């Protein structure tokens, strides 16, 4: 295998996992830009969607096995519901008290959800059936796994749908208006309660979709959300917290950065390299890559 082929494969692998980071980062940035709050239990929304989709896909006594598309819808719906629940029960009451209370409350929620999942689905986790073709394909000397392409493709498609929703629909425009200026939007008759709830629901759906997409590739476990959600948060901050294109760029960049440092430098120091590069980027761009220099404090 040539060196160039290896680098190309490293980059492709990085983009594949990075597109999932992007989805989770989008969820974080969307919530921040619209509602000015962070859901630190995002990983558990991700996990709950994966478990729900799995349960619906396999079926049981109450419900026969459903096709993949239906299970995705069910998982995404549960993710939206759970995100809204966390927002109404924890994030909104604590938002006024301060950021620290939001963090502590969300961490409480994430412990609660993880351990509830252990009680419901067991601690070992479950195998998600293969829904995408997994046998590798050779494209001009480069080995590509169709599953990764599917994950990347669906992620990008979801981002495109989000973009169209935000820019072309009335609701999306209302959400953007409320994100830019809450009181002015209110004067225009846009209820920020509605846009807040909508923002949370859409963002949680994205996180849920990410969870379901990764499930066939990984294993479904109660802890599956922890790492991905922190990577998603990192990607969002890197791109400029609250900046929608920034979240996409941040996610892809983080995926590629991790893969290249593991593949070309050292897998032992992969995380340390990623951390150092991130701190260095924030030194030069304190508001993240696409974050505004003089923008509001995040």
């Amino acid at each position, binding site marked *: 295998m040539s060196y160039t082929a290896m680098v190309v494969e*490293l980059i492709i692998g990085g983009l594949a*996992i990075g597109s999932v980071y992007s989805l989770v980062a989008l969820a974080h940035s969307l919530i921040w830009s619209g509602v000015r709050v962070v859901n630190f239990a995002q990983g558990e929304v991700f996990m709950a969607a994966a478990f729900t989709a799995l349960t619906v896909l396999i079926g049981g006594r109450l419900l026969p096995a459903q096709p993949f598309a239906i299970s995705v819808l069910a998982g995404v719906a549960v993710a939206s519901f759970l995100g809204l629940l966390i927002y109404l029960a924890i994030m909104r009451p604590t938002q006024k008290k301060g950021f620290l209370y939001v963090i502590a409350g969300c961490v409480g929620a994430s412990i609660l959800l993880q351990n509830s999942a252990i009680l419901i689905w067991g*601690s*070992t986790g479950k195998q998600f059936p*293969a829904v995408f073709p997994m046998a590798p394909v050779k494209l001009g000397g480069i080995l590509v796994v169709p599953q990764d392409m599917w994950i990347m493709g669906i992620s990008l498609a979801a981002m495109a749908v989000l973009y169209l929703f935000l820019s072309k629909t009335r609701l999306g425009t209302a959400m953007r208006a409320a994100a830019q200026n809450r009181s002015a939007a209110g004067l225009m008759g846009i209820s920020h309660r509605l846009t807040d709830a909508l923002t949370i629901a859409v963002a949680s759906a994205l996180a849920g979709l990410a969870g379901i997409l*990764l499930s066939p590739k990984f*294993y479904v476990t109660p802890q599956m959300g922890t790492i991905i959600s922190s990577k998603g948060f990192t990607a969002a901050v890197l791109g400029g917290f609250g900046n929608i294109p920034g979240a996409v760029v941040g996610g892809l960049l983080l995926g590629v950065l991790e893969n290249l440092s593991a593949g070309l430098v050292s897998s032992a120091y992969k995380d340390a390299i990623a951390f150092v590069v991130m701190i260095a980027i924030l030194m030069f761009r304190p508001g993240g890559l696409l974050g505004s220099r003089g923008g509001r404090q995040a």
Partner: protein
Amino acid sequence: MSKQWKGLLGLGIVAALLVAVALVPALTMAAGEIKIGAVAARTGDNAALGEWQANGAKLAVEEINAKGGVLGKKLSLVLEDSQGVPAQAVAVLNKLIYRENVVAVIGDCQSSPVLAMLPVIKTAKIPLLAHGTNPNITKQDNPWVFQTRANDNVKFEALARFLTEKMHYKKIAVLHDAADYGMGGANAVKTYLRTKNLEVVADEQWTPGDKDFSSQLLKIKKAEPEALILIGPMVDMGLAMKQARQMDIKAQFAGGAGIESDTTLGAAGGAGEGLIFAAGFISSNPDPKVQSFVKKFEQKYGYKPNDFAATGYDSIYLLAKAMEKAKSTNPDAVAKALKSLKYEGVEGTFQFNSEGQGLHEMFYGKIVNGAPVFFDPSQK
């Protein structure tokens, strides 16, 4: 609502919580029972380990009690949760020793809590049947510790010996997690290979929690190994094998206990076919003792036991045998009896050396048609 009323409401909630705690009935043990404590993570990230250990131990306690118990008394198991955190493990160990008055303790399943528990059992003079596999556990000059799983050196030396001597592989790669088990195991493999004047052709690792190993596997692929040893949590090893085959890595897979589990094979999705493993406990071991344990365990819990369940089961039997031999539950006498005991358990033959290491030999197996097949020990 005024601030004060809110404050009172909060106070009320705190008080209600405390009352709820007080109302939860404390488990009272009948007099004349022999209490054994079991420490493991039972909630949180490593809750699975505690569940396996407890299920194995519970089965042994039931069997022993059904046959009349030990020295005319019933055994009773007191489960405590360490969450795999050393300070918590020390807390529950103290609770077991000084509040529950247990005669012996089994656990924890992870090594760092065990290492933190060692000074406490030395002071309290209570035997500890440790389920962590770090070789350091039995190197602390502590006469009260008994390691009931093969330590990482024993396990991975045996595996490396098998791969080099029996399979005649020269190009061996290691992929492991950056935690106790993975780093210790990889180190044992490298140390053994050096005695044969061999070096691993690739030594890659992942951060615990990572599930995408593509970059590490690309480097391994470039090194073209004949065999790839995987060391880490069960799910992760399975995912690594699946991803390796997707990347067209053709090396022979190999690993230690756990890699032959249904969990790993399920996560590997067919990629585990043909893998070679070395383990103390193998559920397909034709030994009738093992088969009877596997059958009973599967009937009771609905899944096959793994080595954590087996070590929970063996630990209780070891303690029961030692008490019978000592004709006493006195910790000192039990510890002495354990030292001189030879016991055929489901993990193999236990014979504790002066350091407290109990298992010294490994079984080998191979995955054929998706199920572990046991190599006849006479062949090795």
